[in-house]
């Protein structure tokens, strides 16, 4: 039971990252691998601010703002100009990969390659019905739930959320109707930076961080987003649930060593059976609704 709870809480902690990937990928088709760099950047910013004497809440807020600014810069300097030249998604992916390498190496050169931690002391644990739950796990659960609720609420009930869904559905028509597509893209990148940095800060508080710590959770988030539905904003949540259950199953039935290959084999299976993900339905023109 403890393994099941740990596995599911670990998977839920990845949900904001999957949403951060999807909020950029679904409307813009940018395969945002540089998100792994933003994931690494946020805790280092918080750590630097805390070392400079900033109180913890201020340091965390500063880190989130820093991550949002970095994410916006990626759109303004990297993807926006490529979009103007009407480059294909592959070019965006390669540019994003270059940005990821750049961000990680700047972190290594600026703050060193050693693992760090944000947590000043050992964390408190709670025992409930023979289950041991740490404050870090509770924080990860709360951040994931709040982030998902805010994200889906924004998407469903606000004008900007509606326009973002429209951008995902038909960007050309949205532009023809006079909406500012460039501003919507910036909004998507900003939201992505905020979601990703929130998840990164909680995970770093719980387990520490290093410059390369972003790639693994971001890849899991990407797998969840693709598996759940590459054209759906709801896909990441479903994908993460599937991945969480698969990881727990492998952990209980086989070994923790084979969790990652199992998740990626699940992705391969998903790509073969439903290339556009679980939550995508085919339409007459072959695209998504």
């Amino acid at each position: 039971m403890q393994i099941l709870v740990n596995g599911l809480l670990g998977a839920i902690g990845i949900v904001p990252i999957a949403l951060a990937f999807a909020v950029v990928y679904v409307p813009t088709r940018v395969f945002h691998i540089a998100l792994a760099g933003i994931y690494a950047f946020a805790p280092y910013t918080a750590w630097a601010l805390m070392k400079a004497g900033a109180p913890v809440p201020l340091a965390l807020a500063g880190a989130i703002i820093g991550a949002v600014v970095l994410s916006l810069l990626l759109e303004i300097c990297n993807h926006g100009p490529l979009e103007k030249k009407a480059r294909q998604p592959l070019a965006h992916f390669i540019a994003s990969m270059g940005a990821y390498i750049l961000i990680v190496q700047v972190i290594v050169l600026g703050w060193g390659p050693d693992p760090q931690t944000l947590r000043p002391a050992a964390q408190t644990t709670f025992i409930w019905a023979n289950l041991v739950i740490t404050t870090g796990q509770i924080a990860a659960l709360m951040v994931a739930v709040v982030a998902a609720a805010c994200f889906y609420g924004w998407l469903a009930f606000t004008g900007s959320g509606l326009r973002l869904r429209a951008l995902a559905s038909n960007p050309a028509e949205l532009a023809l109707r006079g909406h500012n597509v460039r501003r919507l893209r910036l909004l998507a990148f900003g939201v992505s930076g905020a979601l990703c940095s929130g998840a990164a800060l909680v995970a770093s508080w719980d387990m520490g961080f290093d410059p390369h710590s972003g790639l693994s959770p971001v890849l899991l988030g990407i797998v969840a987003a693709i598996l759940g539905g590459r054209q759906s904003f709801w896909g990441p949540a479903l994908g993460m649930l599937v991945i969480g259950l698969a990881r727990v199953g492998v952990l209980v039935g086989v070994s923790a060593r084979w969790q990652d290959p199992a998740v990626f084999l699940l992705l391969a299976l998903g790509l073969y059976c439903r290339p556009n993900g679980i939550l995508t339905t085919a339409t007459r023109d072959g695209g998504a609704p």
Partner: protein
Amino acid sequence: MSYAFHLLAAFSIAAMLAMSINLIVGYCGRVTLAHASFMAIGAYTYALASLTLGWSFGPATVSAIATSAIASLFLSLPARRFKGDQFFLLTLVFQVVVFNLVRNWGSPDAPFGSIENLTNGPYGIAGVPRPQLLGVMFSTDWSRAILALSVATGCATLCWVVLSAPLGRLLKAARDDELAARSLGKDVDGARARAFAISCGIAGAAGAVYASHVTYVDPSLASLDESVLLLCTILIGGSGNRLAGSLAGAMTWLAIPELLRLFRVPGADASNIRLLLFGVLLMVIIHLRPQGIAGAYRIE
């Protein structure tokens, strides 16, 4: 002088890898994140064949090439159906599976080379024998550098011949307009499978040369970082022509650290600055020169 020979061997291995990934990126039009795993398959096959079976350089290298070429079917068969980000997600799956197989297929209780402990897990395989060919032992730095250069020259000749032949033209045609190539009755899938097999075979040969040169292989050879760097090498050098782009990529890969040494950058920072420059180059190239330094295929 020994350092110069070491550089020559490193250049030969880098050039082989760049030539091999050029076939997939530049001629098949597919971006792969799994190329390091084919090099690792070749390196581990060589190490196992030479240590457990006692094979010399020739047969062990042939077995490394064959294993990598057969493993290429895991990518070439899906390449019929998938392209773009779906294909590189599949290559990512292959990469993660191979890395974990190499890292986890070990047991401290079982003897090395047995079915329970095939790769020696995270510890890797040490003591890979120096190359020996037709009774000649390649024990000096210069002899191993010449051997690596010879194998690289062989691979370059193979690439030149294959890409100058109808197969190369068919691959280019299918890359630019697959439907048109198919409508002319061309066997696009077969051509692509052959290109993948040749490409991964060359990566396997590079792995074998690397294992015999360094005498040690470990799971980091198959890491995603290595695959990303290999992809960067060909994207920066340029793809879609027979040799120029690959050689430019390999040269860039080796030239950056040497330039940093010239500017007396401390060794600890040099590798990070090299990667940083690779990131910057990748972004600059995709914005300003999508065909790379000396390539012909524009990644639009």
